[in-house]
């Protein structure tokens, strides 16, 4: 099993557990969509799986072992708002190479123009910025991507472009993927397994 969540429990307040005893496993080659009503804890679960939040109970296993406490996390998270996930004062070239040094071939595959490297985030559109966020998260040690409403704020043409790029890379590098979405049509188009979060989190 590639990624396993065992009996995860988490709450922002003591009296209310937003994630209650959630167990989930995702295997190699699976592309999973996590669906459920707003406010039910999908984004919180994504953050736990990517190691940003520590669960109060339970653990996340990566290839059978607990997630590494330091160093590069094999599970990377991509957010809904690229403009909020990027330092507005840095030129994009610096943002892109924050974690690793992508080569020109990869950047071309991602549809990132060399001229964009010297621009600031406000000078690019949301779709263009989201390419940087994905490329930044695609270091050689990344084995699993979580896309939390990654294309919700983008127009459908840009959305289709971004997912085409994502699927190419996932295929090429044999990565696992989980997406959080409200768009059933998109989930069916991209994923081979759909999980209803409420079934998981009874």
């Amino acid at each position: 099993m590639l990624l396993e969540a065992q009996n995860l429990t988490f709450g922002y307040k003591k009296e209310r557990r937003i994630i209650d005893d959630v167990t989930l496993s995702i295997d190699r080659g699976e592309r999973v969509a996590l669906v459920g009503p707003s406010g039910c804890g999908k984004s919180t679960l994504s953050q736990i799986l990517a190691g940003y939040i520590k669960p109060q109970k339970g653990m996340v296993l990566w290839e059978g072992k607990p997630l590494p406490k330091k160093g590069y996390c094999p599970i990377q998270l991509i957010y809904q708002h690229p403009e909020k996930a990027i330092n507005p004062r840095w030129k994009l070239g610096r943002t892109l190479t924050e974690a690793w040094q992508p080569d020109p071939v990869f950047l071309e595959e991602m549809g990132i123009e060399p001229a964009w490297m010297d621009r600031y985030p406000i000078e690019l559109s949301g779709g263009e910025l989201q390419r940087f966020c994905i490329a930044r998260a695609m270091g050689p040690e990344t084995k699993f991507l979580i896309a939390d409403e990654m294309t919700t704020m983008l127009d459908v043409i840009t959305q289709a472009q971004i997912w085409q790029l994502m699927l190419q890379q996932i295929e090429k590098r044999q990565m696992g993927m989980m997406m959080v979405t409200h768009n059933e049509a998109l989930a069916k188009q991209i994923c081979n397994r759909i999980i209803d979060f409420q079934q998981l989190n009874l």
Partner: protein
Amino acid sequence: MERKEILEVKNLSVSFQMYDKGLRQKELQVIRDLNITVHEGEILAIAGASGSGKSLLANAILGILPLHASVKGTMKYRGESLTLERQRKLRGKEIALVPQSVGYLDPLMKVGKQVVGVNGSKDRQREVFARYGLGKEVEQMYPFQLSGGMARRVLIATAMISNAKLLIADEPTPGLSTEMAKETMGHFRDLAKEGRGVILITHDIDLAFAYADRVAVFYAGTTVETAPASDFRKGPSALRHPYSKALWEALPQNGCKPIPGTQPYAGNLPSGCLFAPRCPYRTEACETTIPVRQIRGGEVCCNHAT
């Protein structure tokens, strides 16, 4: 059936004064030749590329653009010119906005109080909250305690509490579940049935196609096509502009097929048709100004539309 026009926007252009190098300034035109009309009892959806000027149009109608923006062209609300003074008087009362981002909420104020605002009442706020499935405990929460979808519903509530005749909803559905999004569309339809006009700015174009009366497609700051929503439900053969067709084909349920390229940057536009660099039907005639034509009950800005 001739319905009264509630809003008419004609040849609108919006530009920003920007600093170039040092103290030199330049003008960046972000909206040009933009035309829309909204009738009473109608939902007009505005679809189009991210950054095509949809939200700016909303801000221009309300008169809340930043100070370094300049607006040209005519805007009429109920037949009368929409001046800055009139905008100030009408906004929040006759013209209401559902803002796009959760950032529009005051982070230090409980949401119940924010929704009541200056014109609402506590009872009305509870009524609107109940309508959107927001419990009583939500009114005592601060914006950071809300999930994305809850915040979205709070934003919708801020507009619904007014008795506006024209509602501008800027991306009201992202983060909402399909059921909730459909329900919200139902609410907009109810408002339209009461004779109000609704402008629905959205990327969820499948919802727009299903619930709107007409759809205006924006590209790089201008309207490329305005057509009945039924044409968008029928598919590419009923549409007129190649960009509208491309939007339809990029929908996940229609195959998720993207066209290559990106929308041109406002400071670096091609001459003539703005879509030409990505257009499969491009000819030399596309390098000059393209007139708006009436075709099969819709308006289109393309030489090759039939």
